[in-house]
């Protein structure tokens, strides 16, 4: 086991990349501690799978280094890196039994049969495969097969990291939840570094201690779920994480003061605005927006009941501003005003948090 360091990592699938747009992965510097649970979160095509394949050794990056502990593994083949990976779609060896599938990575490495048996049974217990060990793998359902893939990923002891590439895509929703908490439990039990790639924020936020949000081959923000929620470093993070996402409101900044439609707004990062003047963006989450006696005058356009609470969609001119209210709260039909929690309202400069 080891700490994983990514050093000035860049990758392009083209032989002679010219502009930044040619890179699937643009300049990455990350350090992951040993035993952590990390998630790579981002929309399809943001480069998260590319990054995963670079770490697992299926791809060699165009620039930069991958370090496991102090060892440079950038050019080492997959089998020399001592890592495990679970793929998006189940990969099982059809002709083998479930038992042989789980034992395969161990037998290939010459582990003594007694130890293989012990390990396979432990993992089968963890992944609920004990009853099916003698069955042929090809006869299982999609989620049964994915459990085998998970099991094969977990079966080796002392791996440097286990990587999951959207492993729950083919799983039924109710099992998804179950397997996700199972994975979390396994992480606590095994203490292995786990890297989880997904485009689903719920999966990322519930699984990881540290979430890396990616967009267009760049890391937009890396932080704990709470940090991502309370202090998004980029409007993309604000919008991508949270349901509904963060409100982005055009605002006027002059002399350290922030105005939206001629109303003065108190923001958390006012001190950082410095000498900035002109049009910027104000970001505030629906959770930190509320109705007030005075403030920004808006019209209520739509109320959506989510069961737990209600999402109110209000309009400031043509701009939509959403807020969350309790089920029993009174929603003003006329002359509504909005107030923002100053501690959770931030000004963004060209997408990035003004600092």
């Amino acid at each position: 086991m080891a700490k994983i360091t990514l050093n000035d990592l860049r990758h392009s699938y083209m032989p002679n990349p010219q502009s930044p747009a040619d890179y699937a992965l643009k300049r990455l510097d990350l350090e992951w501690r040993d035993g952590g649970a990390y998630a790579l979160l981002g929309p399809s095509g943001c480069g998260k799978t590319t990054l995963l394949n670079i770490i697992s050794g299926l791809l060699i990056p165009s620039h930069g280094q991958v370090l496991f502990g102090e060892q440079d593994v950038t050019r080492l083949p997959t089998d020399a890196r001592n890592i495990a990976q679970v793929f998006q779609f189940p990969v099982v060896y059809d002709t083998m039994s479930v038992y042989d599938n789980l034992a395969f990575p161990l037998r290939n490495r010459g582990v003594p049969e007694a130890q293989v048996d012990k390990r396979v049974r432990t993992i089968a217990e963890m992944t609920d495969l004990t009853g099916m060990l003698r069955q042929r793998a090809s006869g299982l359902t999609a989620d049964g097969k994915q459990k085998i893939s998970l099991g094969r990923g977990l079966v080796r002891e002392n791996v440097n990291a286990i990587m999951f590439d959207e492993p729950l895509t083919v799983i039924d929703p109710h099992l998804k939840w179950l397997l996700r908490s199972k994975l979390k439990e396994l992480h606590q039990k095994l203490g292995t570094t786990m890297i989880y790639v997904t485009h689903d924020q719920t999966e990322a936020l519930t699984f990881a201690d540290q979430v890396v949000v990616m967009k267009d081959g760049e890391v937009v923000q890396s932080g704990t779920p709470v940090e991502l929620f309370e202090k998004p470093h980029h409007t993309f993070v604000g919008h991508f994480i949270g349901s509904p996402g963060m409100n982005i409101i055009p605002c006027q900044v002059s002399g350290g003061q922030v105005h939206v439609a001629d109303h003065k707004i108190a923001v958390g990062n006012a001190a950082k605005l410095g000498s900035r003047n002109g049009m910027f963006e104000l970001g505030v989450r629906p959770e930190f927006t509320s109705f007030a006696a005075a403030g920004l005058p808006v019209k209520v356009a739509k109320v959506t009941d989510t069961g737990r609470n209600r999402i109110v969609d209000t309009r400031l001119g043509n701009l939509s501003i959403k807020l969350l209210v309790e089920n029993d709260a009174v929603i003003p039909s006329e002359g509504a005003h909005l107030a923002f929690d100053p501690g959770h309202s931030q000004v963004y400069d060209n997408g990035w948090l003004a600092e």
Partner: protein
Amino acid sequence: MNKTVNQKAWFFVLPVVILVAFNALIPLMTVVNYSMQETFGDNTFFWSGVRWFEQILQSDRFWASLGRQLFFTFTILFIEVPLGVAIALTMPKKGPWVSVCLVLMALPLLIPWNVVGAMWNIFALPDIGLLGKLLNSIGFDYNYTRQTGDAWFTLILMDVWHWTSLVVLLAYAGLVSIPDAYYQAARIDGASNWKIFRFIQLPKMKRVLTIAILLRFMDSFNIYTEPVVLTGGGPGNATTLLSIDLVKIALGQFDLGPAAAMSLIYFLIILLTSWIFYTLMMRNEEQ
């Protein structure tokens, strides 16, 4: 809306029924008819029951032909299937060379069978053929028109050249359908190349290989044109396969009765063996 109920739809099926009747059912029934009767020409027939069948099954000549046929079929299967899989494994999976390889592989399949026979006939001639002359000049006493071993060698080489491509193309189709994740997972699991072949590639190719073996079995069991053009069944009867023998009896000696009985036995052997092959392979699949 009222539904019109009538039997006019049958007219649409009629052309197919006529076609199948003329090219399959009627000829087959004619053969059945011949196999039960004796004729002395002049369109007069005498009922002979199963006598021709008994005669064929008791004749050494038939068993010898069948033996040669089985030897030929199983030899080419044992060469073409492993060789075809091996070639498919070495072919590129992507890039500009894919189409080049595919066209090269398809070429032998596009050549008419009698042309293949004629090509190899000339190619292997000991005095002027490239292959024959070469073999003789490097010290082999090679003459496929005189020596049994040489005739078999040429015959099998010709079939391997002509038909291995079919196995290659089918195996290749099976190989390219394997998702990359399987290879990546196998590498992460520490599998050797042999294990990747044994546990990923071979199982994924199984279905297409079943079809390949079945097709090669039926085609090689029916083979006529190429060996007839190449060796004419000779030297002597050394390479007289079932189909060649059948034509000799039917058209050479004009023994319509025995020839018809023999065709039916021949037909039943192919039908039965194919069925056994297919059932065995499919049952394996289900397990």
